[in-house]
């Protein structure tokens, strides 16, 4: 079982609130999303960037940097949402092939042969109240909106909600007994 690395949150609550407000959110909370990171670099070289992905993501995120920035102190509060198993190496290679086709400048960079590392990506969730409730996810590293993570986050929130309801139900049952 691999240890899951927690990345340092670089966007504090004030900055995240500001950014989410600009995007129309009226409430926010911190979250951690469990993803898989694979190094990208020249063949037999060290990584220069990381492909951040999960099995059911259509397109991966690209994080530039030689190392994943680890969190030194204890992780702060926030719901943890896991994305499940890592993508297979074939799927990763194919994912990166299409990324390179779309950005030919990256053609020489390859997926390094190390296995994907699990990690917690810090994020901020923003809630927009309108005719319908809407969700915005921004990165806790850069503040960029991450719409492609929405299916993972929604599924995670639904599971967490289900768990809370089940726990409340069993508590109620225990009390009634």
């Amino acid at each position, binding site marked *: 079982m691999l240890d899951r690395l927690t990345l340092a949150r670089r966007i504090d609550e004030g900055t995240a609130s500001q950014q989410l407000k600009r995007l*129309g959110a009226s409430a926010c*909370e911190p979250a951690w999303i469990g993803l898989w990171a694979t190094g990208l670099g*020249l063949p037999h070289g060290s990584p*220069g*960037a990381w492909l951040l992905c999960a099995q059911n993501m259509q397109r991966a995120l690209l994080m530039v940097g030689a190392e994943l920035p680890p969190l030194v102190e204890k992780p702060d509060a926030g719901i943890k949402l896991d994305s499940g198993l890592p993508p297979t190496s074939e799927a990763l290679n194919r994912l990166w092939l299409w990324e390179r086709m779309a950005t030919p400048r990256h053609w020489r960079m390859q997926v390094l042969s190390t296995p994907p590392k699990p990690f917690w990506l810090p994020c901020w*969730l923003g809630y927009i109240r309108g005719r*319908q409730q809407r969700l915005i996810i921004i990165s806790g590293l850069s503040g960029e909106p991450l719409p492609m993570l929405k299916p993972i986050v929604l599924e995670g929130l*639904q599971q967490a909600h289900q768990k809370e309801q089940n726990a409340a139900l069993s508590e109620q049952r225990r009390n009634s007994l």
Partner: protein
Amino acid sequence: MEGFTLFDTIVLIGYICLIAWIGSRFGKDQQNPEDYFLGGRKIPGWAIGLSVMATQASAITFIGAPGWGFEGGLERLVTFINVPLAMIVLILVLVPIFHRAGIYSIYELLERRFGPATRTLSALLFLVARGLATGVVLYAPALVLAVVTGWSVNLTIIIMAVLAISYTVMGGISAVIWTDVVQMFVLWFGALFSIFFLVTSLPGGWSDVMDFGATTGMFNAIDLSFDPSVTYSLWAGLLGGFFLHVAYFGTDQSQIQRVLSSPSVMDAQRSLLIGGYLLIPQMLLFLFIGVILATYYQQHGLTPPEDLNELLPRYVVSAFPSGMAGLVIAGVFAAAMSSLDSALNSLSAVTVRDFYSRYIKPNASDAHYLKASRMATIFWGLYATLFAFFAGNLGPVIEAVNQIGSWFYGALLGTFLLAIFSHRSNGRGAIAGLIAGMLAVWAVSALLDVSWLYNNTVGVAVSVSVGYLVSLSAPAPSHAQLSDVMMAEAAPDMQAVLAARADNAHIIGKEARVTRRRCIGLFAWFCLMLAMLALLQGWANA
């Protein structure tokens, strides 16, 4: 009248070599892999936006728009007056959906929504249309080369085709954003210098231009005629041109490619905003040069060249000081190369992703796909070259490019709109709509005397209505098929989850949304431009 001197030739070759060196130095040879990825990320948004503009149409604009203005004055500006409105639709509707869907080619969205047949047909339409338009893009620098050297255009087309194809196959340099930005400024300065030299060569200077423009009706940009056969009426520009540009910027892979590769939706919006604000003033600048050239030709009793695309390059070569002409012509070349590289890349990417890797070799190696993409580049380069031989007969290149798009993109846009807005439509309807939309455009162009600007409107209207009606004859799409175009959080149980979480989350208050502010800004810009044209026209007719 110095002509294209040896010094100009040295500047031209030096400029091209410098751009190629910068491209190979900064685009390919970074030793540190981190620098490699950071390449485009430390560059400000405005530079990225300008680079997108440079790739889109700079050389075509430089060559085609003055001829357009020479022929018809500012009336043709209505073709572009709608661009801010088109950008609003892209920013609000298409870009968020494309970005969220995580797709490489936009035609993938149609497969998920309607099935593989719709994807294949729409990608095929794109390849045919963009391949033809690339022929016009290839013709533009070939014409400049012919003007400079005095060689036949057919020969210069072949030379430019060999250069463009080999350069794209070798990797291209369009990835270097700063070189695109430099090219953009070189062309703008070239335009401004042309105005300066032209106006100072007229005895009455500006007053001659204004008098000529006013008496010949060249400042009449707004024609309120409801007659659909009037090509450049305001209504044709607003209704027809609007769909033309939504379709061009939203459903053409070569245009939307950079948007799909942007790190975030906000970045993608930013690059569209630059086009939304700058395309009208840029077009106004070049059309105005056409008006000044018309004044110049009239005052000097000159006969214009048969091909009006030659007007500005000829003037630059004959009137600019030695060296400066070389620089501007080099800027045109480099910008055309950047456009060609981008177009050929997107054609080969769609060929490999939407056809080759799906139907011919689904599980080949990276090296195999790279080779296939190079072969595809050569194929599309040859296809474009064949068409480039006919491009000289199509009139101003800027109109030719837009006309070609108008034959194909309306039906394509209709299919995307059907996918997004009609949750009842399905694959059968989409295919029927796409084919009917195309046929309707061809029928209207061939049988009716209607402005070509309406082609896209006809394509959209027919493909949406036929698509919807035919969809009713087959079952509604499944929930999974609608997942890309529906708000994922719209399901009632999800709404309850989000409401519960929002109640317990930290309240941050509300602020005007940045997207809304951006769209209001674009709309205000559109109104301002329209008002300015109306004022100019009012003054000219007073």
